[in-house]
């Protein structure tokens, strides 16, 4: 639950509510107890609750033990199953009101639009709900084929033999009244000879004299996988939707002006994404400072003010891994934009672990490197040599992902660095091809030839089979 869900006028009160730790660990379990009794207990603990007996009726019981970490979350969980919700009222009071059903966002990961399927249809859904999901119904051409009641919302549906378009629909029903729906069309074909093909997408940046080169067509590209030429079956340019994880290091020397510039740069970056794009922000120092879910709407970063300047170390590896992992559920082109001025200090993961993740992922990493002094420090966790190795591995990870390092001389260039990355993403070509499924974990070497002179071509050159 985020403060953004509460009315704007009461953001300050909402912050207090969100930041207030839940009292649930101190008291007896709530599950099964009358709701009124539990609310009375919260009032005794100092919460100013206002509700009518028409809404909170004596027979209402707490359905499940709340698990949220904040008071707002706990209240949501207590009230949600009864279609009620907390709302900040005048003078910091919390009004209990009838819940307005909120739409549930649902997207198909599989099948992708136009995907060729055989008699077995793989379905994978990404569901964003501010409430528990009761069930997800999967329909093919209007006929219910599966019902899923808990994540992961993945299943396989056996289709009757046949050829042609199949409309796959997902209906999501939330436990607190929310509903969501999404549809996608897949193309079913009959198998006459079995060869397992995987539709892969390559994101290719072509630059001339350091500037993205636009206007190329499918015919300008030649694609080679493990030495074998592959036919390009889909072709797109930079308008392909993307999912971006914006990772902001706000530790130590990035505090103060650096932080303001970082947030301004990230804000500008997000404002330039299109409506089809999705983005999330993960801000960190020696801890997680803020994390937002992937959203199509532009994230309001004003909700994430800069932390007060203080000396703090950097937990870079852990947050880079987290950003890559969170991108796994995204179905469009995956991008990490990492802004950091230094190397990792105290992550639990080694950069070699992150490199493993980069190999598994298809995300492209852009590293906005604020200063380039090299790792010359040591801590209780690592010595100078090991820190240098961490930086080298991060550089390797960026290169492996098909991204690049944007080096900055000073922090005033942060905004233009974000701009340059958006420009590059908008000029990227997206090549789709069918690849034979190999043994699991086998790396595939990719090469893209562009039939133009004096151009630089950049892409992720190695993929692993899923």
């Amino acid at each position: 639950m985020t403060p953004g869900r509460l009315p704007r006028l009461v953001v300050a009160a909402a912050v207090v509510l969100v930041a207030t730790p839940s009292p649930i660990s101190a008291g007896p379990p709530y599950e099964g107890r009358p709701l009124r009794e539990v609310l009375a207990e919260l009032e005794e603990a100092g919460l100013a609750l206002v509700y009518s007996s028409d809404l909170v009726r004596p027979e209402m019981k707490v359905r499940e033990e709340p698990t949220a970490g904040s008071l707002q979350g706990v209240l949501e969980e207590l009230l949600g199953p009864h279609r009620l919700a907390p709302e900040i009222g005048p003078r910091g009071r919390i009004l209990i009101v009838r819940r307005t059903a909120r739409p549930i966002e649902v997207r198909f990961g599989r099948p992708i639009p136009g995907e060729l399927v055989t008699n077995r249809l793989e379905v994978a859904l990404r569901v964003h709900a501010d409430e528990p999901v009761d069930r997800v119904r999967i329909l093919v051409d209007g006929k219910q084929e599966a019902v899923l009641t808990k994540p992961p919302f993945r299943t396989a549906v056996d289709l009757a033999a046949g050829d042609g378009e199949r409309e796959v629909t997902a209906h999501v029903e939330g436990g607190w009244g929310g509903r969501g729906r999404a549809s996608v069309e897949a193309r079913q074909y009959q198998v006459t000879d079995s060869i397992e093909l995987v539709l892969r997408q390559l994101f290719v940046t072509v630059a001339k004299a350091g500037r993205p080169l636009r206007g190329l067509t499918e015919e300008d590209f030649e694609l080679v996988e493990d030495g074998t030429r592959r036919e390009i079956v889909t072709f797109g340019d930079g308008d392909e939707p993307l999912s971006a994880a914006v990772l902001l290091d706000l530790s130590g020397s990035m505090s103060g002006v650096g932080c303001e510039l970082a947030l301004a740069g990230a804000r500008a970056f997000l404002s330039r994404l299109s409506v089809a794009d999705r983005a999330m922000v993960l801000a960190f120092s020696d801890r997680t400072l803020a994390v937002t879910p992937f959203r199509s709407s532009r994230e309001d970063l004003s909700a994430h003010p800069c932390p007060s300047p203080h000396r703090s170390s950097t937990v870079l590896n852990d947050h880079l891994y987290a950003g890559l992992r969170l991108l796994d559920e995204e179905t469009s082109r995956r991008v990490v934009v990492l802004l950091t001025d230094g190397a990792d200090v105290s992550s639990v993961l080694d950069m070699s672990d992150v490199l493993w993740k980069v190999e598994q992922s298809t995300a492209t990493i852009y590293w906005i490197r604020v200063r380039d002094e090299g790792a010359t420090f040591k801590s209780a966790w690592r010595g100078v040599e090991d820190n240098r190795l961490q930086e080298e591995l991060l550089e390797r990870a960026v290169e492996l992902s098909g991204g690049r390092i944007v080096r900055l001389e000073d922090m005033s260039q942060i905004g233009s660095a974000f701009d340059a990355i958006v420009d590059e993403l908008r000029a990227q070509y997206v090549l789709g091809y069918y690849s034979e499924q190999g043994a699991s974990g086998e790396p595939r070497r990719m090469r893209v030839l562009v039939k133009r002179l004096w151009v630089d071509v950049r892409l992720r050159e190695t993929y692993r089979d899923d």
Partner: protein
Amino acid sequence: MMAPPRTSTAAGLVLCLLALGPVAEAADRREARREYLEVLSLWSQGSRDRAVDRLAVALTDSEGSGRRTGIDRAVGSTARRLARNLGAGALLPLALLHEEVYARQAREPRGRASGALRPALELLSIFEAEAKTRDDRAVVSALQTSLAGRMAEAHVEVASLGLTRSALRADPSNRAALFAVAVSAERFGDHAAAVRSLEALLRVDPEHRESRLRLALNLMRIGEKDEGLEELRRLVSEGGREDWIAAVARQELARHLIDRDEIARARDVLREISDRRLRDPALAVQTAFVDERSDGGEVEDLFTALSRAAATSEAPSRTLYLRAPNDLLEELRRDLLRREQEWSSRLDRFLRDREPALSGR
């Protein structure tokens, strides 16, 4: 009558000025001594903030002047006189006052702390020279450790380490000093020295958990993996203690298992964590990592854990390891304050009875 030659008038003026110089210096010294005794009097009567303020201002304002020399002399002469009349223990309140002034100055944005550090160190060396009994030496050792801790906080690390080593010479069983030396050695990458200090500490205080954790990690870094792992296992299996120490022990144990590709065992180690500690981003991320390595886990769980971590004000476990909170140092300071209470009242009586300079206050 002949007028006196002009040259002799000028020479007379110079002679007068030369004669007045020492007179002015002596006045400065008297003034500085009186001021210092007033500060001591305030401190011994419990007006600690006022005493610290006055001494800090006096040291800063007089830096580089004759008055400053006067204050420095007053510190030395007063300390020796008190030790002679009341015993070495009487220097305890003075040492704590100077430490407090140094700590205050070190927190100032512009570095004025070195001016406050000199008399604090001078006082400790007088105390060390005057300490004849084992108990006095233990107090000196504690005071050196405490000041060294302030110096480390102000990032004067090398000098801090030197002073901590002096503390250990005065009292080899000083736990806070052993801990500080170990932490410092670890930061400088001298893991063998860290192990030696931690082993010495654990001989005195076998149950000190943070030292056990640090010993385990340093042992592993010098190649004594089995011994280190054994200690980590003990730390995570001590029921009901899911503090930051257990959290780091768990992370490092899991990390070792991941390095050995024993992902399932690493997962078991992390699964036992209470829900509360999942607010620690390191545990959340490591759990997600081992889950993914074993083809399991939900991305949603990682998001939830990170959201919880962002909502908490608790410092993450690995940051606490870096900070090395040194609870032993806090314990040592509490003990010094307890001892000081007795000496403060004796000091106050002495100043009232024996210092005519303060009679008009």
